[in-house]
């Protein structure tokens, strides 16, 4: 009987794939709240990477905690061993010892690995004004691994050329990164369809694996930039039954992970349903 599960959602597939990118001993940051990233971190910490050190909000070396929509920040803070503010965090971690990985999403990304979190259209008169990059412009360059995740793999997001470069990996191949005084590390995009990786400047993203049930053509047809396609592209490793059990029973009992994968319109109703369950569980 296989250790792998066949009962998982696309969100859970991506969440587990992101968690697998986290190695024990990594230093990580929980930044802007994106349920999927938070769930992936905690899943990694309670499974294969118990010794990772993550900083969440002002809480240094936070413990593993149950993700709920009402309490995630308070839970991360309560378990912390030390307190640093954002300034201490960026100098000590981002710029000092160095962070290993921090999954980032964006409005657009192109074949050069340029990420756009600023605008769609003209910068001065944008069709869509995005939130901005926060630490992404520095982080995409500095972190050991660059990990982009995209709940909806399509040509509006994976584009030939971004409208604005909020941040970029700058140096991609290990040799180029070492030459520039940066830690070598991979550049990966994990989407709802596949895992893409880029190993060198000038060379396109390669399809590292396609998720079960997805074809290479699905990926190519939904990507706005050139892809390198090997003769036989492997299938992404499925979530294990154990991972799904821990996700659903301990880390994410309310299904927060599904959130990023929903159309905007459905989100408020979904949040309200999660909150109702939380409140009931609290006996309020």
């Amino acid at each position, binding site marked *: 009987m296989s250790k792998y599960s066949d009962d998982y959602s696309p969100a859970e597939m991506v969440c587990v794939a992101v968690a697998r990118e986290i190695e024990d001993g990594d230093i990580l940051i929980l930044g802007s709240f994106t349920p999927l990233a938070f769930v992936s971190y905690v899943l990694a910490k309670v499974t294969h990477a118990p010794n990772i050190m993550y900083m969440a909000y002002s809480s240094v070396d936070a413990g593993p*905690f149950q993700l709920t929509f009402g309490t995630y920040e308070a839970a991360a803070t309560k378990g912390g061993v030390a307190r640093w503010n954002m300034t201490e965090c*960026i100098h000590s971690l981002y710029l000092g010892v160095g962070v290993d990985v921090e999954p980032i999403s964006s409005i657009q990304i192109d074949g050069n690995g340029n990420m756009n979190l600023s605008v769609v259209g003209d910068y001065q008169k944008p069709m869509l004004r995005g939130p901005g990059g926060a630490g992404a412009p520095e982080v995409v*360059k500095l972190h050991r691994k660059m990990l982009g995740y995209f709940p909806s793999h399509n040509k509006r997001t994976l584009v030939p050329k971004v409208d604005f470069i909020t941040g970029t*990996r700058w140096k991609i191949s290990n040799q180029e990164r070492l030459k520039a005084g940066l830690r070598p590390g991979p550049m990966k995009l994990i989407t709802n369809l596949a895992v893409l990786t880029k190993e060198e400047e000038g060379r396109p993203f390669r399809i590292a694996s396609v998720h079960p049930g997805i074809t290479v053509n699905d990926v190519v047809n939904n990507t706005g930039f050139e892809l390198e396609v090997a003769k036989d592209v492997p299938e992404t490793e499925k979530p294990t039954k154990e991972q799904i059990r821990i996700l659903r029973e301990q880390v994410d009992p309310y299904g927060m992970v599904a959130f990023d994968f929903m159309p905007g319109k459905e989100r408020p109703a979904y949040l309200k349903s999660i909150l109702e369950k939380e409140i009931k569980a609290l006996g309020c």
Partner: protein
Amino acid sequence: MSTRDKVLNQNKVAKLTDIGKLIKDGDSVAVGGAWLSSHPMALVRQIIRSGIKNLHLMTILGSVDIDMLVGAGCAERLMFSFVSMEAYGLPPNFRRAVEKGNLKIDEISGLAIIIGFEATGRGVPFLPYRGPSGSDFLKQRPDFYKQIKCPFTGEDMMAIPAIKPDVAIIHAQRADAAGSIQIEGTAGSDLELAKAAKKVIVTVEEIVPTDVLRENPFKTKIPRFYVDMVIEQPFGAHPTSLVPSYVGDPWHMMKYMEMAASPESFKNYLEQYVMKSEDEYLEAIGGLKQTNLLKKLAREVKSL
């Protein structure tokens, strides 16, 4: 106040309605907090009530604080690295204002803006760091990012200039009358904002005798000589969080997103929630029942 005056003045306790003494039309105002945490929302609402206009807002990681000020027409300009409602979507008023060209923006990378505030507090005109190579910000803001060489190693570094706001507004757990501030949870870079700004206004959940601060001086993050005014305002961060005291209010955030969806409905939001006293505001968002729930949620956390 000069630093000397801040040291001399041991009673900085004031009322929300006093902020007009320190914030003037056209001032640059750095707004504290980060993500959906610890934003000085009662001060934001008071700025709107007081009709203070043409502000040059500055935020590192802004949210409903910035969106509300922009929507109420208080802002002429915004320096920021991030304005987001996170899980709730894109900030509606901020989006509209920028897409319509009604708000001048200075968009800067997140580490750079923190380092710019930090430089002022350290008394240096600039600080170097490893900047966002390849970002369009470098082309767009040569006045803010300057390449320099390390005089010892010859390495290329990015220099960021000191940022000097007129006013910083912050919300925290606790202060004494002399203005020393304790922060227990998510601190953002509030300390660096306080060091950088000429004038500092802080609302707190409670004003206590100085001896209470001395019981755990490790929590005191902003000493009195940076602070001009302290105002006791429980739930002054609502609808954002102030952990470990209370969590953010997702119900009100969703209400906000609904009503901020159009300029017309946002007018109603301002009337129903902002253009009244903070006591009335707390009643409007659900009163004691709601605030107690948010406190309870902050306690009832599950570690694994």
